[in-house]
């Protein structure tokens, strides 16, 4: 073990692979930061997680960098004895995408990152190190000027949506800076993952991280637990889970297109896309009883195998949906009155998105080729390669709408291919596994990545020497992508905020946990 820690600065693992904690190299902080800065220079590398967890008298820090070309995840760590005053030199100055991780570590454990350019609270977690910081007293960025004014919105918004606070610094109608303050939705989920130890409790929790991504988060959780327990699942189950993931994508993308049309006051698009969402989520209800796919994902098996009649209903739904969707989308994207409100509005660049570590749609719409389904495929994505939509790059509201349009079509085609695979599969569907049949191995780290509809979801877990989960870490794609919305608003008319916000549709609760 000694030799490993001395010679290698990281260990490579695959997505949903577990490794023994003793194999993770422990670097000095100096070496650690040099390594991060060096590796993050490569455009195909991005950080999927960097977190701290207490282990006795020591605070351990684990960093996971995904390499999209090598399809691996490079894992390494550093340590700090727990003290009253803990300080490290900030990496954010060199690697902007680290701001969110360092801020979270500061908030949770009181570690100060010196020279951090943006040392702000993240979500005011209930178990934060400094209880004197409260959600109603966030240190907003300010500019002293007689000519500027501030506009504050939230936490409660006009519509029926989740709470968050937006603070605009404006020069007349033009937004100079938008700061987004979150944390209102904090439910203490990561802590509950440790407190509630029954598998079904954790499964239900995973479905509740973000109710609009119930399948995405539950599938990420399931992949993680199955890896820690060394369970390999049926091809059939992989195919069905993937169909669930792609249906969730279609449902959310079409709902977002409808909401964007509402924002544009384009009534026909709003109604038709809205009505097309209904058969999508109703299919989910027909399949598993829930319009959001809750109940669909269980460890090791399923209560709801896709039988012949369900497959038939799925094909019928896809055909009907596709026909109606294509006609409506063609119309929408050909109307100059619509395009005028989409093109060159809220533009962000590829460079900006790679600097903030954007993932999923928020990365792809600027031309970054980042998609876990291709770079780190698991399950059915491994057997049946998915070709991501990589040909949109304008970074404006139009790009975000057009990407959804193309991804819906890609998902329909992909589900059809999955159905053909399913038709030739003769495995008898396995039932879900519970405590009696599952044992997590001890002293492991596992990392699970799934491309949810918003982007890359990452769950990490660490087991202790009794095989119990000692630390659970969740990262929703929105954690990075909220900064993209803030950047989109720079130098934009404040009245363009709603359409930009809808074009990202980021998760508040996924961020706040």
């Amino acid at each position, binding site marked *: 073990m000694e030799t490993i820690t001395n010679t290698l600065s990281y260990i490579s693992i695959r997505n949903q692979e577990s490794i023994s904690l003793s194999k993770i190299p422990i670097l000095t902080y100096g070496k650690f930061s040099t390594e991060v800065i060096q590796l993050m220079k490569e455009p195909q590398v991005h950080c999927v997680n960097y977190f701290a967890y207490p282990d006795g008298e020591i605070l351990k820090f684990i960093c996971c960098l995904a390499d999209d070309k090598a399809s691996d995840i490079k894992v390494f760590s550093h340590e700090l004895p727990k003290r009253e005053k803990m300080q490290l030199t900030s990496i954010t100055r060199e690697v902007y995408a680290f701001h969110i991780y360092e801020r979270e570590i500061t908030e949770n454990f009181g570690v100060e990152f010196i020279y951090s350019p943006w040392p702000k609270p993240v979500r005011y977690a209930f178990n934060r190190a400094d209880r004197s910081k409260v959600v109603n007293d966030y240190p907003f960025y300010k500019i002293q000027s007689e000519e500027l004014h501030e506009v504050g919105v939230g936490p409660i918004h006009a519509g029926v949506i*989740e709470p968050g606070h937006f603070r605009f610094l404006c020069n007349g109608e033009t937004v100079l800076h938008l700061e987004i303050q979150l944390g*209102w939705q904090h*439910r203490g989920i990561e802590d509950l993952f440790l407190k509630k130890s029954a598998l079904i409790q954790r499964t239900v929790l995973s479905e*509740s991280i973000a*109710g609009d991504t119930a399948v995405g988060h539950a599938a990420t959780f399931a992949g993680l637990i199955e890896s820690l327990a060394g369970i390999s699942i049926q091809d059939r189950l992989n195919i069905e889970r993937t169909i669930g993931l792609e249906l969730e994508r279609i449902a959310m993308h079409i709902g977002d297109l409808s909401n964007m049309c509402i924002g544009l006051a384009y009534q026909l698009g709003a*109604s038709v896309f809205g009505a097309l969402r209904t058969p999508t989520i109703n299919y989910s209800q027909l*399949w598993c009883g829930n319009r959001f796919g809750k109940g669909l994902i269980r460890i090791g098996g399923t209560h709801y195998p896709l039988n012949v009649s369900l497959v038939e209903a799925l094909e019928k739904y896809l055909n009907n949906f596709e026909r*109606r969707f294509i006609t*409506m989308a063609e119309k929408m994207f050909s109307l100059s009155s619509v395009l005028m409100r989409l093109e060159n509005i809220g533009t962000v660049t590829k460079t900006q998105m790679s600097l903030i570590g954007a993932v999923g749609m928020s990365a792809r719409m600027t031309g970054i080729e980042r998609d876990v389904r291709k770079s780190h495929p698991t399950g059915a994505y491994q057997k049946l390669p998915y070709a991501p939509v990589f040909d949109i790059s304008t970074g404006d509201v139009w790009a975000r709408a057009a990407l959804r349009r193309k991804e819906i079509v890609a998902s329909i085609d992909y589900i059809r291919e999955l159905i053909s695979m399913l038709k030739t599969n003769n495995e008898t569907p396995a039932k879900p596994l519970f405590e009696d049949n599952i044992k997590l191995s001890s002293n492991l780290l596992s990392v699970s990545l799934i491309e949810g509809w918003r982007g890359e979801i990452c769950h990490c877990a660490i087991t202790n020497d009794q095989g119990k989960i000692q630390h659970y870490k969740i990262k929703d794609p929105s954690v990075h992508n909220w900064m993209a919305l803030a950047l989109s608003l720079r130098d934009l008319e404040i009245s363009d905020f709603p359409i930009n916000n809808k074009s990202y549709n980021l998760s508040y*609760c996924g961020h706040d946990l």
Partner: protein
Amino acid sequence: MIFDEIKILKQHGNQFIPDVTKPQLPGPFKGRPEISAEEVNEMALASLCPTGAIGTSPVSIDMGKCVMCGECSFAYPNKIKFTTDYKIATNIRERLIVKEGDINPISIDENKIRAEIQSLFGRSLKLREISAAGSNADEQELNACGNVNFDMGRFGIEFLASPRHCDGIVITGPISENMAEAVQVCYDAVPDPKIIMLVGTDAISGGIFVGSGALNRSFLEKYIIDLYVPGNPPHPLTFVNGVLEMIRGKKKN
């Protein structure tokens, strides 16, 4: 060309549900449970529930706590069956507890509805929704209540932006500590008389989040709750039917 629009409208057809009290939901949908008299190991049954919704002797399910994971009915299929009855909203918290042998619908106690609710809000009810750590599933279903399918606007029921223009609040989510003050401020801003509805299991009991140190549910101890709408998330039909029954009574629908 206008022909495109005609084609789209033809494909679109009529989407609205003519009578919201009538639609049937498909088999796996979990609505009101029915619990048979079959003898089972009650402790084992109760302990498998992720939210402690199952009570013993006699066996009962508290729909205000149930997250509809379905595990109890998979493990004990002859003991517990979920029907597709989605009309499960009520104004009496105890009525959400379904006991062994209960096969009657969950209903609203008309005698307990405050007099001003039906006289003032029967034809028009404007609501301010507060997502207090809601997961965006409940919120999306509430938005769906106003879409072209369920179209609750035709009954005068609508969500508005300003609490000052509203007749009450609808809370989703288990109410986080960080939202506690905002919930109170928003409620205070609604003019009297005003109503409170809790929508979704998370709001009614805290759901899977019970025991979290990040919640503050003290607001709920101060006021009468006018309607409980269970579900994870509640189906739009559960919400629309529950609200209609509350503001118009059963017959006048």
